[in-house]
């Protein structure tokens, strides 16, 4: 029982990271109808920036905040420079741009910081929380940070004027323009926020998976799984999906004998394929019917 509880809590901790990435993916998906394959690399790059600032002697939270701000600005810049010019292009052009972005960020990070694995400090330490042995302070910190972030985002989209404008712009761009919303800037803002959310996820998971240019590959796959499980049309669903994927992954890795560590990543793919077969719009998604 204790092992079970331990694994559920650890699963929630990593699940929070998947939830953040899933949410970032869904935010961009709702704006441009496409998966941002480079979401993980953007997070990785931001984490490297935080690491560099730490190396230069900045205190942790200052470095984290600075990395978040840089990530936000970078996200806005990517939308303005890369995706604004191809907004009306075919989905395939977007996919190619995502892959290019992926490769550029990945190799630039490798070029600047090399491919050796680095440690990234946890601001919470890694002792057992309250000596209970159930969960480490870092895992607990991860849960708190992601839940706080998600609560903030919920409040932002639900109750603020600009959050409402962003939701309207993503769902009905033409109507949004007719009420005076600057749709282009709302999209850029969405990219900036998605990038900043990714940065938080990257910095939280880096102490666990260690820092290197390919660190987010598996994590993003879980994030995609979370997004698909919850439903790409539902930010709340994506978050729930992320947490669920984290827990399922951990439990399966522990209790299903043949899964172990090696087959853990396969679970994400099984989940994606399984959900797409049974409920293509995800567990919480709306079915979109479009007239052709």
């Amino acid at each position, binding site marked *: 029982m204790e092992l079970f509880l331990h694994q559920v809590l650890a699963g929630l901790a990593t699940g929070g990271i998947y939830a953040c990435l899933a949410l970032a993916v869904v935010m961009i998906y709702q704006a441009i109808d496409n998966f941002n394959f480079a979401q993980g690399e953007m997070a990785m790059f931001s984490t490297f920036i935080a690491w560099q600032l730490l190396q230069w002697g900045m205190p942790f939270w200052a470095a984290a905040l600075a990395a978040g701000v840089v990530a936000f600005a970078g996200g806005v810049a990517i939308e303005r420079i890369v995706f604004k010019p191809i907004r009306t292009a075919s989905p395939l052009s977007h996919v190619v741009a995502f892959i290019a972005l992926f490769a550029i960020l990945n190799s630039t990070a490798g070029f600047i910081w090399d491919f050796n694995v680095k440690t990234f400090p946890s601001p919470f330490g890694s002792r057992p929380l309250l000596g209970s042995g159930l969960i480490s302070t870092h895992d607990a910190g991860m849960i708190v940070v992601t839940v706080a972030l998600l609560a903030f985002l919920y409040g932002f989209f639900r109750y603020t*004027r600009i959050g*409402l*404008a962003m*939701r*309207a712009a993503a*769902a*009905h761009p*033409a*109507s*949004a*323009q*007719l*009420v*005076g*919303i*600057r*749709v282009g800037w709302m999209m850029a803002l969405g990219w900036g926020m998605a990038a900043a959310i990714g940065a938080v996820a990257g910095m939280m998971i880096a102490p666990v998976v260690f820092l290197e240019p390919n660190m987010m590959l598996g994590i993003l796959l879980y994030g995609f799984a979370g997004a698909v499980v919850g439903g790409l049309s539902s930010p709340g669903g994506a978050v729930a999906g992320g947490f669920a994927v984290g827990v399922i992954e951990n439990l399966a890795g522990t209790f299903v004998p043949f899964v172990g560590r090696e087959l853990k990543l396969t679970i994400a793919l099984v989940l994606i394929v399984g959900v797409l077969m049974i409920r293509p719009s995800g567990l919480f998604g*709306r079915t979109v019917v479009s007239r052709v």
Partner: protein
Amino acid sequence: MLLEVQNLRAFYGQTQALHGIDFGLDVGGVTTLLGANGAGKTTTLRALCGMLRTSGDIRFEGRPLNGRATEDIVRLGIAHVPEGRGTFTHLTVEENLRLGAITRRDHAAIAADMERVYAIFPRLHERNDQQAGTLSGGEQQMLAIGRALMLRPKLLLLDEPSFGLAPLLVQELFEILRRINRDTGVAMLIVEQNVTLALDLAQHAYLLETGRIVIDAPSQKIREDETVRRSYLGY
């Protein structure tokens, strides 16, 4: 003059849809655009809002609109109720109305305007926390007009407000439009298939034929001119 249009041409890609039209709208006046399908009525509204490639001169309160982005034109005080109503289907009725006032900052006045819209359309008040996509066609049309009013526009562009509504509801809707025009003094440009109602409401009418204005006259005159009615309006 609230709006002055000279030699307006509009294009869908390579295809020219308006061939140089001239017209004007008075402050607080109601004007209707008549014509058969494909004559260029919707195109004219879209051209005014910067949703198409255009040439020619459009002036709103003396300021040129050409080359401005749609959202900037809206911010000058032109509210467009588009074909299909442009409802934000998955947001609530109240959120839809709040979006109408999204460019405004005067919170107290926005709250007052919201009450005013609810007073005009009590049905919207009853359903204020319902998803807008679940409303009936008539309710969505009311919501679209309410949303447009939330901008406190100087000019209201209405594209087929009667579309898809039951005849009784259409009568009621036009009565409401008349009252809104009288109470708020907002000018209106209405594209409408229901010629009788449109001519009743509007003081002035333009008749479009394949992208050109062929008749420019007070509504009264068109109503009385049997030849025009027979040959162009079909009644």
